[in-house]
């Protein structure tokens, strides 16, 4: 990997960010984690990210709102949604808003990594 891609993970369960950070950093990504969406969206004003992995259901600003905001302001950022339930309606709603991928929890790390790689190779 020549370029160091930057990934943002937003989930109100701390372990999701911790685990994603540990495993994605292994592959050379730079990862920042947030427990809620507001400071995450603030951060986007300062720094460019390549991928955002966000939880669907969160207190305050939820995953759908993150997705819509990001697509409006930074359409080039890839958004991947994860959710506690295999929620079909949520998946459809997210896909309509141009989500790159949608994973039910527990998320298989291999699949998440593959999805990120696919997104980044498309971006090139």
């Amino acid at each position, binding site marked *: 990997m020549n370029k160091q891609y930057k990934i943002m993970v937003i*989930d109100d*369960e*701390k*372990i*999701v960010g*911790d*685990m*994603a950070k*540990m*495993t994605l950093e*292994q592959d*050379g990504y730079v990862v920042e984690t947030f*427990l*809620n969406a*507001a*400071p995450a969206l603030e951060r986007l004003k300062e720094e460019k990210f390549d991928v955002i992995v966000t939880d669907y259901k969160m207190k*305050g600003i939820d995953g759908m709102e993150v997705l819509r905001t990001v697509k409006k302001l930074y359409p080039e950022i890839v958004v991947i949604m*994860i959710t*506690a339930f295999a929620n079909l309606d949520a998946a459809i709603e997210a896909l309509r808003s141009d989500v790159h991928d949608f994973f039910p*929890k*527990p*998320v*298989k*790390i*291999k699949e*998440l990594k593959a999805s990120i790689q696919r997104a980044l190779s498309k971006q090139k």
Partner: protein
Amino acid sequence: MKTLLEKFRNLFTRKAAGADAKLPFKVVFSRFRQVLESNNRALEIMADMGDKLGGNYIFDINYIKKSYAELADSVFQSIYNLNSLSQNKYLYLHRIFEKINDRINRILEGKPPLEQAEPVLFYRDISWEMSDEVGGKNAGLAELANYLKLNVPEGFAITASAFRDFVEYNRIEEKISALKQKYRKAAKRSHKEDIMSAITFAEGGEHDTAREILSEEDYLDESFFAEVRDLFWKGKLPPHLESSIEKALEILSGGDTESCRIAVRSSAEKEDLEFSFAGQFETALNVPAGIKNIGKAYKEVLASLYSPGAVAYRDLIMPRDKPMMAMSVGCVKMVDAAASGVMFSSDPNNLNNEVVIISANWGLGKTVVDGSVDADHFTVRKEEPYEILEKKTGGKELKTVAVEEGGVREVGVPESERNRPCLSDEQIRELARQAVLIEHYMKKPQDIEWSIDKKGEIFILQSRPLRISSPAGAARNIISSLRKYPVLMENRGKIARRGIGAGRVFLLRRLEDLKNFPPGSVLVAKHDSSHFIKVMPKASAIITDTGTPTSHMSNIAREFQVPTIVNTGIGTSILKHGREITVDAEDNRIYDGIVKELLNYKITDEIPLMELEEFRLLQKMLRYITPLNLIDPLLENFTPENCRTFHDILRFIHEKAIAELVDIDRYKEVLRNNIAVKLDVPIPTGIFMIDIGGGLNLKGEGNKASLEEITSIPFRAIVGGMMHPGVWHSEAVSMKINDFMSSMLKMPDVSAMSYLGENVAVVSREYVNLSLRFGYHFNMIDCYCSDNIRDNHVYFRFVGGATDITKRSRRAELIGSILKEFNMRTNLKGDLIIARTDNITRPEMEELLDHLGRLIAYTRQLDALLNDDSVVHRYVRNFLDGNYRIG
């Protein structure tokens, strides 16, 4: 969970209706199916939860809660189903369930699993589910003694419960709160900034962040911790704790507390994790075994939880809104040490060096651990015969020795001993051998403390993960270097436990060969079996031809963290006994030879998962879920009282459900209420069949069925075997008059079986229960054979005969020997033989049943011919060679 408890209470308040009446067979059979279903569901959830510990998924607390609720429900259902099958014979299981469920729920709530546990536990009584109670170091030592049978000093743990009692008795938490208050007040000024930023966050709707800032406790400095230490020093032992420790010391010293000396060591809750608090906590050496001295040393060790260095670990030791970290303590007998030291089971600077590194000095190990002396250094090759590669004798001017009145001190080493090695070559090699054994068991390089007493006996004092330094990222560039290793097998079967392991293949032919399993080998077997638990601590990896990732064996493999691939189909035929291989159960590949690059990659690139709260939580819960203590149904401990985990309960239920089916009395009822169909084959078996669903497809008239009309998978296989050319002998075998006389005096247990007087097969598509009487012996096969491996079982029973007991026993022995060759677990008592097997595929099952059919036919009259023991072996050989002639 409430609903489960309600169900449970209802069970006890409601009287079982018609408990004495036998259930109709169809009902029995359908309830048996229900037991299998709920059991399977539970095993699958268990497997799924175990899999999550492997670090391949991102999960959260909701997953843990949801999975556990489903698991508890399935286990409950299984118990309920078994009781409805057995008419409430096993209601006690509900009590066991409630006990385990309670503990797991307590863990989920962040509490210790037991409300009140023993204050003192001897090492021999410590098992893995107690590791929270006794702390990492104690649990590790007990494990080395109890599982690896290594020599560790005798001792006991003073538990986490004892710690909590001490804290409560001395009102330490209240006092700490007051102290915090004091420090908070003193630090108020510096807090102003925090409060301002908290307000900003709160206004922006970020209430959590605001709260977090306000509860920062960084004003708790070293002087705060000094005051906390003082609380422990000044505390008093609660009376019951004092008397428990006193009693334990009495036992440990063999009644001679005067001359006995003890080492009192810390064993804190998270001490052996990646962030091991190495060297933070106190150890008191050579303490006289009286309660006064030990009590004082105990308090010193507790106080060291808040040692000056502890401030760095503040959030771990004293987490906000959670109970403070508990400190367990180990009390072990001092070793009268001639020499002691430290050894690394691998070279921490270069894992490619396949060596064990030993540092040693005369006397106790303190000088080596501190690095305060020029010690001896030995480098030993990491495999048999443990060749000593380097011997560097240090100056060793000083050594630590025990002082008569207690404590230790450093003394000078006599000139004559300074420049000679403190270990013999034999001792060096034996230490290296034990280091390798421990590394294999722990699945990670180890940092081990040891002592050798004046009689030359080695003691392991402590073992913890060795910190490895490796160039960052170097491990990732291994893919190209892997190309040079030939791949023996790729993408065959399913991964049951991820990881990488290497060693020589141990090709298992018979279960009893497990006792010869060399440590560090890769177990390769046709079938999986829960009996593998006996070698799991020593196995580098496991490969089986059949099996599923949800089997009992797979669950245990996850517990022991043994890389495991099941259902490869061809493992036993490709992997030759004694060959060195590397099992990559990450990418499902098996390499020829030892692939060091992969093994090192495993060690250096592992994510410290156990630093994550949820992983620790799941691991704690699984301690009450996956370990299997009930292994052999033939042993006396196979009772509900001995079920300590959900896995035990499920295993017990499966076995007892089969026993209910096998209950021969049921068949009287079946016979009375059903129309029997005669088996119409060219041999005179005299078998009548009763179809309870899909077992027969009658085409012709009348009440008889040919082989073609049998649609019962297992029964068809058995009959096929009985009809195998040459196995059914029609000629009468000459019987001596004594044989005939003894056959008139039937064995009491035979008549107790209330034989039906007919040969009967109760069949369904996937099931048969076949009861046979040929002459004077009784044979029974109960078998379920389907495409779902886990449901499959064969139960085989054979008893009696027409001749004297010696000949009958010989026949039982003959049958037993043959059944063992088919990998069945057998139990022989006189002329009664019981054999069983389970968890094998349908084709293998059909093959086995075919052989059992042949065996039934072959051995019908054999006992009259078994005049001496030597012929038994001949007939066994003949049968296995396909030579069925007798006489």
